[in-house]
């Protein structure tokens, strides 16, 4: 009897702890959701129960967001920035990752670690010189400045990810292609790339989410509303005067968060192997 009681108590405690973690991590998102559907009189009344609707839910905030603000423009900006950065990153990181995995031997390993370490150089150390460089190139206040700068962290990260993947690919594949008359580079283009499509897709999605998550460079380089990417626009541009319009802000934050959250969770395992790859052999 005693034993059963202890066991039941243990189980209850376990699920209670799990519930605690889930509530802590998801509550702010629940809060975005409920705020974005609440009418203003409901939101701004301290006597109302805040956790649920006291008046009928409304789509007013979403309508305002799409019709009266630059929200759609920010979405498009982020899409353009993301696609351009993905292209630049793939062009640079794909051959680099392959080269470091297969062709440069011992030096390549050191070089790979070197490239990866640049991922650790923080934006807050580089934003001053980069903002001068961006200004001198005439890209100040333009989203193209972000297309130029974002590859500085996506290239190192993706080179590292792809390097790990290419190392795991059996070298016999290229050897066979070379025996059949392919050049070294031809073997890479015709054999390795088609076989690496899953890894390339992972890289594409990661690069895209990294560009969506970035905030510091966007904040530093861009002040005109029409050029902002979605994250910066929602966080800084929906405040009119000194007044926060929480319904619209939360609606915008929710829409921008959902795709990133889904993409990240799908690729989580690859991400972890990617960054811990240096520590576990």
């Amino acid at each position, binding site marked *: 009897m005693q034993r059963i009681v202890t066991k039941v108590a243990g189980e209850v405690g376990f699920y209670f702890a799990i519930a605690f973690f*889930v509530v802590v991590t998801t509550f702010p998102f629940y809060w975005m959701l409920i705020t974005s559907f609440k009418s203003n009189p409901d939101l701004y009344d301290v006597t109302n129960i805040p956790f649920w609707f006291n008046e009928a839910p409304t789509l007013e905030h979403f309508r305002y967001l799409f019709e009266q603000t630059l929200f759609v423009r920010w979405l498009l900006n982020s899409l353009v920035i993301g696609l351009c950065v993905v292209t630049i990153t793939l062009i640079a990181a794909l051959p680099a990752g392959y080269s470091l995995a297969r062709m440069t031997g011992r030096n390549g390993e050191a070089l790979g670690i070197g490239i990866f370490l640049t991922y650790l150089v923080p934006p807050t150390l580089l934003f001053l010189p980069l903002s001068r460089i961006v200004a001198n190139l005439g890209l100040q206040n333009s989203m193209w400045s972000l297309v130029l*700068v974002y590859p500085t962290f996506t290239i190192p990260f993706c080179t590292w990810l792809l390097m790990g993947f290419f190392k795991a690919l059996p070298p016999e594949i290229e050897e066979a292609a070379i025996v059949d008359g392919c050049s070294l580079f031809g073997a890479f283009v015709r054999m390795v790339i088609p076989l690496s499509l899953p890894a390339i897709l992972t890289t594409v999605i990661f690069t895209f989410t990294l560009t969506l998550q970035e905030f510091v460079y966007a904040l530093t380089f861009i002040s005109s509303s029409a050029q902002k990417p979605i994250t910066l626009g929602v966080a800084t541009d929906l405040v009119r005067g000194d007044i926060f319009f929480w319904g619209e802000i939360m609606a915008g934050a929710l829409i921008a968060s959902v795709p990133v959250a889904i993409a990240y969770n799908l690729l989580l395992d690859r991400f972890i192997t990617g960054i811990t790859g240096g520590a576990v052999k």
Partner: protein
Amino acid sequence: MASIAEPVTKPVSRFRYILDRRETLGAVMVAPAILYVLLLVGGPFLLAVYYSVSAYTIYDPSWRFVGLANFAQIIKNPVFLQTLGNTFLFTFGSQFLGLILGKFGAFLLMRPFAGRKIVRALIMLPWAVPIALAAVAWEWMFDSLYSVINWSMIALGIIDRSDAPNWLGNPHLAMLCVIIVNAWRFFPFAIVIFLAGITSVPQDIIDAAIVDGAGFWRRNYQIVLPLILPIVAVGLIFGIVFTFTDLSIVYLLTNGGPVNATSVLGFQGFQVGIVSGDVSHGAAISLFMLPVLLAVVIVVLRFIRRREV
């Protein structure tokens, strides 16, 4: 006639021959990535170092060398000293809290149970979602008047409406808030790092320890923990580097206030260098991050290497 035809084909074949050498093609293929990083990370980094010893501002872009005068000035500034202290408190406070929550969370998620995948996906949300967007949600939750946290505490009878805390308006509470939000954002990352480490420990080692009579705590702290340290160390480098240099949480939640109580190095560098346009002093402030970052990276890398040997 044959001797005329030869020079035409030779350069082509030599070029092909060079590109078919592994080392050469390897160097050519890695070059674009290295160049990009050198030009837009290495170059700006050196530029930042030079700014910090010059008199450069956006109003007077002179490259006049002033030695360590900028550093001497900012060290005497009490706001800067406070900022430095805040940065350490912010970093180590949130990392400590994050690691404890992470270890505990990993311990829970190790056990198989129904719906574990969904729970893991939900717990990962703070790390996955852009921090700027989560920060505005927190700002709304910490609102001075409509804070849901205050509402709940009043409803539960813990506090009275008249003395409900103004989370972001009180210097101590504001610091607590930014630490909590940062720990909230990082602990899912700590969980996956711990999980990745624990699952990489071979089961036979654990079995052997059980056979040898090692108890739960002994297994955890004398066998598993030392084995997963390299992975945890990598995770810790990430956490410390990204927190120590963070700008977005402080910028969005408190804007460094009230009265510099939550100002951190990244924020201060932004205020001085970008907002006020005093590039040289801003660069000097940002460069204060460097010794700490270098120390962290070197210590952790040495640590990993020693364990591998």
